[in-house]
């Protein structure tokens, strides 16, 4: 089969899940939510290193913005305390606003960059903020040759990452 350029819908119909890669949290800056920018070897053949790092760095920037301790967050905290936290019934917290931005960004990245390469990012919020899950898809029509090819290359690169599936 010729190499496919997938939209998200096409991906769902014609591809099957080959394996998943999990980008772990980076705790070197404390308990703030940051993810490791280390490039997973399983993605070596699928996406350029620079694009991946760009995505993770942007996400890290968003999370840093959400958890920023400064004037506005104190104001929000004090106002909430003064109203015995009833204000949260009608107002969204700053953190929630940023999470919505992150969700849009991930969807955008999936549509523009990752789905055409047969990859899919999962919002870390759906995984308890523990990992960024990247699903790697294979074309169903070429499942015979290319999946075995890619699984052998990823297993040699990732120390058996794909072997378990």
């Amino acid at each position, binding site marked *: 089969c010729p190499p496919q350029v997938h939209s998200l819908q096409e991906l769902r119909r014609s591809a099957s899940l080959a394996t998943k890669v999990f980008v772990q*949290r980076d*705790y*070197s800056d404390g308990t703030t939510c940051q993810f490791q920018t280390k490039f997973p070897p399983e993605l070596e053949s699928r996406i350029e290193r620079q694009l991946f790092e760009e995505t993770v760095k942007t996400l890290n920037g968003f999370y840093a913005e959400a958890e*920023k*301790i400064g004037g506005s*967050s*104190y104001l929000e*905290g004090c106002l909430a*305390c003064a109203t015995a936290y009833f204000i949260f019934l009608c107002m969204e917290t700053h953190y929630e606003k940023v999470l919505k931005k992150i969700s849009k960004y991930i969807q955008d990245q999936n549509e523009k960059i990752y789905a055409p390469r047969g990859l899919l990012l999962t919002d870390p919020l759906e*995984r308890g903020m523990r990992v960024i899950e990247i699903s790697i898809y294979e074309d169903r029509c070429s499942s015979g040759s290319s999946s075995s090819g890619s699984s052998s290359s990823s297993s040699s690169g990732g120390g058996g990452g794909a072997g378990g599936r």
Partner: protein
Amino acid sequence: MSVMVARKKVVRKWEKLPGRNTFCCDGRIMMARQKGIFYLTLFLILGTCALFFAFECRYLAVQLSPAIPVFAAVLFLFAMATLLRTSFSDPGVIPRALPDEAAFIEMEIEATNGTVPQGQRPPPRIKNFQINNQIVKLKYCYTCKIFRPPRASHCSICDNCVERFDHHCPWVGNCVGKRNYRYFYLFILSLSLLTIYIFTFNIVYVALTGLGLGLFLGCSQSLTVLTVLEVLICFFTLWSVVGLTGFHTFLVALNQTTNEDIKGSWTGKNRVQNPYSHGNIVKNCCEVLCGPLPPSVLDRRGILQQEESTAQEESCPRGPRLCLCAQTDTLHGGVFMQVTAVFSLQVPAPPLSHAEMPEEKQLTSGELPVPPQDAGQAEH
């Protein structure tokens, strides 16, 4: 068959969450399983305040100032609001790893440690991280199958890993962790103030009405007994709650958790210094009490994938009754595991176990994850 389809119940994610929590109001409220002491707390606070407002306040408002009951009411409402917020909210539970993720981590661990020969005990699973130039160890949680973030701990009572785990408080019927620590602190602070307030004005009341004399003269016996009861409750509460507030003020100033204090994580010569403290008391207080509040990642009210509930309906002849049972039983909490066992009969699933069963059903391989549900996502 058409009757069953019409009565199909929407299954929300809270019904399948592992761990020993109780959920009420269709997943909006989350508590620990044992709630007896929480009811006692409610009873003591409501009872004492009711007596105070009914008897002493009527006299004091007239004799001294009407501001007295007003201020007491404000304190009481604030204490109740923060108590309910502490008890009912998600303390910062870290959801368990899905099977794919757990397998990935296992493989990483084996790659680092090497396979262990038969009969030998595997080495403890610990990862070292450097935070602010100090080495902090991350432990692997065997129940949740994750490496716990720093400051997180696994609560054995609720069977969950909780972020910034402070302690499990039976008085509020919930764990105290990252998301509800500030509510907990404000609760004990406002309760201390309320107790001191009621205690003081009871003494003033006794002094003003000469009730001490009344005791001897034998008049208004019931009122005397109630006042004495209030004073006694306030006295014992004072010593415990005020002491606790003082202790937690100390912890907040140093940005420590009760768990770390008990374990002595940051004290002693050979231990590292607390890397999370900013070194400044004001900054620590501001961060703990007024810092940004992360939303719950549990997504309790999200709808579980519909494929599984339809599969249950088709294969089960008594579908609707089962679903109804599920709804009532989970509310009682005590039979939560029984309910999940019943569901497991309908769907081919591995044998019953806390950690594994629900995750197996949540994500079947080959399916794309459901797009985020905005309704359930950003919970309090």
